[in-house]
């Protein structure tokens, strides 16, 4: 277990380093620069700016300075666009928002997905099964910004239940979490139902039933664990998608998460912020994939890490 964990962490670190190096070079190779503005700047002022923001050295010198700060102090540098704060401060404020939203989205994806899929598998071919699978297909087809719009229309304008945007207490996280999680709940429902139906046909399930267990107990106690495997394997990509999906959802609901920073930093040539958010995303994805592997091996001990 411990050696596996260490091996996993080592892998994530290597990926992070590669992403940091590639990101550093790629973002600086895009035309335009942080000081490019609608109104042109005088060359004397550009020179002052470059010196002040340490962009006057060669690419290699800038690279040395950046990596030095990053590796020795974990300093991701100043933001070129939001000039009152450092990238570390921006991440410290926005990461908890995105992480909470992502976790809630995951709860929605798993909670609703597994319940719906499980109930559908109990009575295959029933009206319930048909309508759940129909809804799941629809949920899969709807992009999250359309879903977000629908949710706003229904739960903000039609029934005034939730705030329309902004971060004001727990209620303001409900609609974003639904918009983020529902498409994956749909995917999970389908995966779990298929997995269950396959497992429920096995001999050992028949044995469990023969022992007199209720259908619910068979489902939760015996069939669920192996049937969860396809869902868990899908979670890695789903986590990635939930994270990147939050870019859109955060914008629709004006939530101060990482997503908006990522998009804006790229568009504004805010090198340090773009790279900082990229590294955080990479780290989160690496850790998420690692956890998925561990859960999968727990569910099915035949899977070796």
């Amino acid at each position: 277990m411990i050696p596996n964990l260490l091996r996993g962490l080592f892998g994530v670190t290597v990926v992070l380093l590669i992403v940091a190096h590639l990101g550093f070079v790629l973002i600086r190779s895009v035309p335009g620069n942080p000081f490019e503005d609608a109104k042109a700047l005088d060359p004397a002022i550009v020179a002052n700016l470059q010196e002040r923001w340490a962009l006057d050295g060669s690419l290699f010198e800038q690279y040395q300075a950046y990596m030095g700060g990053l590796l020795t102090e974990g300093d991701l540098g100043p933001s070129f666009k939001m000039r009152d704060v450092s990238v570390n401060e921006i991440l410290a404020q926005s990461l908890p928002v995105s992480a909470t939203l992502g976790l809630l989205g995951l709860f929605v994806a798993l909670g609703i997905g597994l319940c719906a899929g499980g109930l559908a598998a109990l009575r295959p071919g029933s009206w319930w099964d048909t309508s759940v699978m129909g809804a799941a297909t629809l949920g899969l087809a709807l992009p999250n910004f359309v879903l977000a719009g629908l949710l706003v229309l229904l739960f903000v304008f039609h029934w005034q239940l939730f705030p329309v945007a902004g971060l004001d207490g727990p209620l303001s996280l409900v609609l974003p979490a639904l918009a983020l999680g529902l498409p994956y709940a749909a995917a999970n429902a389908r995966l779990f139902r298929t997995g269950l139906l396959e497992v429920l046909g096995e001999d050992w399930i028949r044995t469990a039933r023969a022992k007199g267990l209720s259908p619910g107990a068979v489902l939760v106690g015996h069939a669920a664990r192996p049937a969860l495997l396809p869902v868990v394997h899908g979670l890695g990509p789903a986590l990635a998608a939930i994270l990147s999906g939050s870019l859109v959802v955060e914008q629709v609901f004006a939530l101060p998460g990482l997503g908006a920073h990522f998009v804006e930093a790229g568009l504004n040539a805010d090198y340090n912020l773009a790279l900082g958010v990229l590294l955080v995303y990479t780290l989160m994805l690496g850790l998420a994939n690692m956890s998925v592997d561990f859960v999968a091996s727990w569910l099915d001990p035949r899977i070796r890490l």
Partner: protein
Amino acid sequence: MTSELRRFLVGLSLGVALLLALGGALLGGTRRPRADFAFANQQEIESLDPAEATGVPSARILTALLEGLTRRDAAGRIQPGVAEHWSVSDDGLLWTFKLRDNATWSDGRPVLAEHMVGALRRLLDPATASRHAKLLWAVEGAEAYTSGTLSDFERVGLRSVGAHTVEIRLHRPLPTLPQVLAAPQLLPVPPGLPERLGRAWTRPENFVGNGPFLLVERRLRDRLRLVRNPNYWGAHEVGLESVTAYSADGLTTQLNLYLTGVVDWIIKPPPTLVDELSAREDLLTGAQFGTTFLRFNVHGAPFTEDARPTPLSDPRVRTALTLALDRDSLARDVMRGGHEAINSFVPGGLPDYTPAVLPPCDPERARALLADAGFPGGEGFPELRLLYPHNETNRDFCDAIATQWRRELGIDTRMVQQIWKVYLDSTRSGLYQVSWGAWIGDWLDAASFVEIFHSGSGDNRTGWHDTEFDDLITRASAATDMDTRNTLTRAAEERLLQALPIAPVYQRVNINLVSPRIAGWEDNLLDLHPLRDVRLADPSTGAANTGDASPADSAPPRDDAR
């Protein structure tokens, strides 16, 4: 339902509830009652340090927290700020500003002349590296000080005389100086604070201002909370006790915030919905001091290389392309939302300037000119590439232009879209043939608008040089009075519209949705709306009673809107 299933469901619901409660409590910050006035301040502000700040969202907040020598009122007119009155010498070079003696910082210290000069010095200092230092380059020695060739600030024309007098000596006359001094970038900073705290001085717990409001909360990309500053000299004129400025990027999100009563003012409703919203009493539109135009690369090559004349280097071709455009249709049918075609480069609306006149759409003459230039019916004319910064409105606009050129002149146009920063790089370097362009004035002055096409201006971006035009601009900027300045500028604008390195298309408009709860908000050419002058139409509906403001739909129409 089995006990395992029940346990699973109960656990799941508890987990979600806990996460929601924790998330909401941890992330939500301090719950405060709704402010007297809330608005969607578009993007997150870039900085609360005037020397660093760019963009209108920052300006809206800074002008509420700080006050310069002069300031703008709700109608956009210049009013005394920290300076009570001012005078200028006959040669237009020496300005003397007398400061009011009751102006104080929010920590109780008086605002002194040396503070105002210190802030301007800080802006010019090369170590500050402010993008806005150039605003003051009409001041004697200022450019050399910023460029680092002059290190002795004594030789810069900025001086405090006693506690309440600021003297500004210019090297060329600038009749618009009081307007320039109202720019948010020239606002003062609390003496000693930036030096002591670095960029942390802009945090709410450290911020000291001299404006009508105080900063009490700032959450990045979320909101700023301001409250009335009791120490402000004009506190009795300030109508709001509290203000919340939300950061909200999405236009639809902003509209939703307005329609649900969360905010009382949004700046730009989604363009696709403007037609639908146009019947509303609270949709306020008006002309803006800005022009959208097309830019031709006259140089025919990147600006760092030698010129390689192309058909666009021929004024007849540029005139043909300009006259072939049906500007009325582009403004009204494509842009919609109250846009009007423009027949000049300088936008209309200035009280003391009559813009030069661009002939109306004339496809007949356009075809003749094109034939004259060697391309009858567009034959042999190379495909044009039209560059625009990526967004849907620009795409529709450029698409309509391509259609008109095809129809009237037989010229094919390929559209090229780039993200904003890349677009700016391309136009600055001359890596384009024809491009979308827009210019919005920072203050109401025709000369500052036309002078961007001076051959030495970084904003020219067309490669067009004309010695007579340059000469007129130079003479206009040396004029001591507005009349001479405007006469010379008008002659330069005529010259520009003869050569047409650009094709003006429409005057930009302000589109605001303003709740009828609000008074003291006026549409103006610069689309600037100082919070100092905003008040509640009915003060009894203040903060305490507006926890659930009624949707704007059901509110009575306002009568003091324009």
